[in-house]
């Protein structure tokens, strides 16, 4: 199967697509990208590419109808909007949640009747990337309805927008207005774009196949044997999974963004040094940015400007004061966002828990922030002091590690067990017994992981301080630049976890 990190994609698919794109006349280059994207889709999901094609044609027509209805002030516009949004969302929910709902309804029935019925799950084939392009399609329709963008007249552009292969499996989730300038420009290949794109791909490969794929072996082992771990070992499992997820997801995003850049197409960034955030709310502005932005633009803001929230704000202020009104308003706007976030990740109670976990934390932070600030001022505590900021980051890390532990756990029951096990023992005996050398990788693998992590962490620090980045590297002198390029390329080739002795690790977010 093709995936962003294997040789089918990197050695055959990508170069052949670049070649076909370049030799094709400019006006047909969009078609080349669409054809490549549908071939990419076919190689993963076979004939299910028809689903993506059907959704794209539907969205194209619905947007044009919506625009006409909006301009002429026709009341049926809202009916078209509701239908055209509910259809792709309904299909997504039906494909992803039928078995989950069936299983839970059966369980509930058994609980109420004392029966022992067993739910037989249906075999449902899920088209690759459905969770990503469904959100893109809905965002596009809403933006047309709100008059932010015109309905696109060219079906070809809508087909490309929804299918563009570098973002098909894992995002970033595109907004039409943010990507149209380069996505449809069909510009010729340029050395500058090829260089920055290729180096970004190698940077992503370093994170994915040098670090994340090795960590995956350890994490799978620790989580599979969760029942025998306690204390520090459980904490370590959570920390290592968070690290694996960050290296893998941000690494794949580097490959996706780099792949698009080869064609001169700029995709939005999906990560911005998330562990430099000072609280959970800011963390989500830096982690999986395009998903957070989607929820903000199409759930949070519409909710905050809805008549329900406005009515509450008006009456709440008069009757209950600003503080309580703000708290309830925040809860009303945040709850659907975080429920949707949990549900979007998949049909598991632990994902719903994950969404509600962040709902509670961010709501708490938002509501208490003004009082906390006042308290700190009264106590003459400088909130900009390095020790205070360090404390904030430690707190955030605890929040993130705990959340990811529940996210990764087989189910909610296992998540709760693991959380409890942190406090039921130290885990020191296991660690002293060389546990980490008995989890599927050897000391050399650990050395590669540690060396790789040092490089990535240093890079993130320098990028956060705006001192250095891959983009800035290009402006440096030729010997410096190419030394860095060679170091990166050879690190990936020599230390990448691929070939004999290593199993290909599936992309985590492609499963959502």
């Amino acid at each position, binding site marked *: 199967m093709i995936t962003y990190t294997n040789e089918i994609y990197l050695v055959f698919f990508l170069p052949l697509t670049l070649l076909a794109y370049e030799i094709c006349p400019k006006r047909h280059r969009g078609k080349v990208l669409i054809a490549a994207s549908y071939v990419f889709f076919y190689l993963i999901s076979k004939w299910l590419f028809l689903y993506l094609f059907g959704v794209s044609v539907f969205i194209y027509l619905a947007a044009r109808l919506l625009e006409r209805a909006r301009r002429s002030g026709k009341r049926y516009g809202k009916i078209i909007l509701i239908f055209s949004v509910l259809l792709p969302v309904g299909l997504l929910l039906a494909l992803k949640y039928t078995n989950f709902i069936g299983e839970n309804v059966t369980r509930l029935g058994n609980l109420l009747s004392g029966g022992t019925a067993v739910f037989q799950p249906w075999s449902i084939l899920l088209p690759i990337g459905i969770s990503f392009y469904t959100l893109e399609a809905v965002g596009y329709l809403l933006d047309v309805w*709100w*008059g*932010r963008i015109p309905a696109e007249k060219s079906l070809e552009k809508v087909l490309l927008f929804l299918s563009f292969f570098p973002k098909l499996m894992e995002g970033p989730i595109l907004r039409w207005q943010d990507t149209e300038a380069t996505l449809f420009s069909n510009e010729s290949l340029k050395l500058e774009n090829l260089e920055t794109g290729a180096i970004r791909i190698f940077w992503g490969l370093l994170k994915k196949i040098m670090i994340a794929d090795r960590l995956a072996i350890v994490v799978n082992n620790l989580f599979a044997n969760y029942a025998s771990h306690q204390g520090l070992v459980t904490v370590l499992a959570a920390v290592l999974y968070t690290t694996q997820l960050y290296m893998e997801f941000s690494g794949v995003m580097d490959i996706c963004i780099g792949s698009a850049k080869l064609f001169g197409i700029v995709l939005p960034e999906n990560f911005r040094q998330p562990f430099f955030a000072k609280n959970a*709310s*800011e963390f989500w*502005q830096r982690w999986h940015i395009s998903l957070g932005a989607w929820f*903000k*633009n199409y759930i*949070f*803001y*519409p909710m*905050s*400007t*809805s008549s329900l929230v*406005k009515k509450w*704000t008006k009456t709440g*202020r008069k009757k209950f004061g600003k503080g309580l009104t*703000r708290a309830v*308003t*925040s809860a009303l*706007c945040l709850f659907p966002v975080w429920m949707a976030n949990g549900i979007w990740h998949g049909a598991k109670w632990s994902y719903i828990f994950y969404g509600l976990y962040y709902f509670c934390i961010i709501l708490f932070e*938002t509501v208490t922030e003004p009082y906390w600030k006042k308290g700190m001022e009264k106590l003459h505590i400088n909130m900009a002091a390095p020790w205070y900021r360090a404390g904030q980051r430690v707190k955030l890390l605890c929040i993130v590690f705990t959340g990811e532990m529940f996210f990764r756990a087989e189910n909610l029951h296992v998540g709760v067990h693991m959380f409890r096990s942190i406090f039921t023992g130290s885990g020191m005996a296991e660690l002293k017994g060389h546990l980490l050398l008995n989890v599927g990788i050897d000391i050399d693998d650990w050395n590669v992981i540690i060396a790789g992590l040092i490089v990535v962490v240093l890079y993130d620090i320098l990028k956060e301080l705006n001192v250095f980045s891959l983009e800035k590297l290009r402006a440096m002198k030729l010997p410096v630049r190419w030394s860095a390029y060679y170091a990166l390329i050879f690190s990936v080739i020599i230390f990448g976890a691929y070939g004999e002795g290593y199993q290909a690790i599936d992309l985590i977010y492609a499963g959502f």
Partner: protein
Amino acid sequence: MDTILSILNDIDDTIDYDNEPRLIDNHLLDSFGVITLVSELEEAFNIEIDAASMVPENFNNVEAIWNLVQRKQGVSA
């Protein structure tokens, strides 16, 4: 303009609003700041701000916010 500045300072008084052209793009005003700003603007200027207006360009600086208020006042007048 003064009313807008006063509302913004109530939300966060550490930002130099007169000289900051990209409040949203530079992550200075977060989504909670924006919804607080919207509800304060609606109250202060007796306007309705709808979902369609919730774009960064309308909240990136004091002038953009002022323009939004004027447009909305024009609509409700």
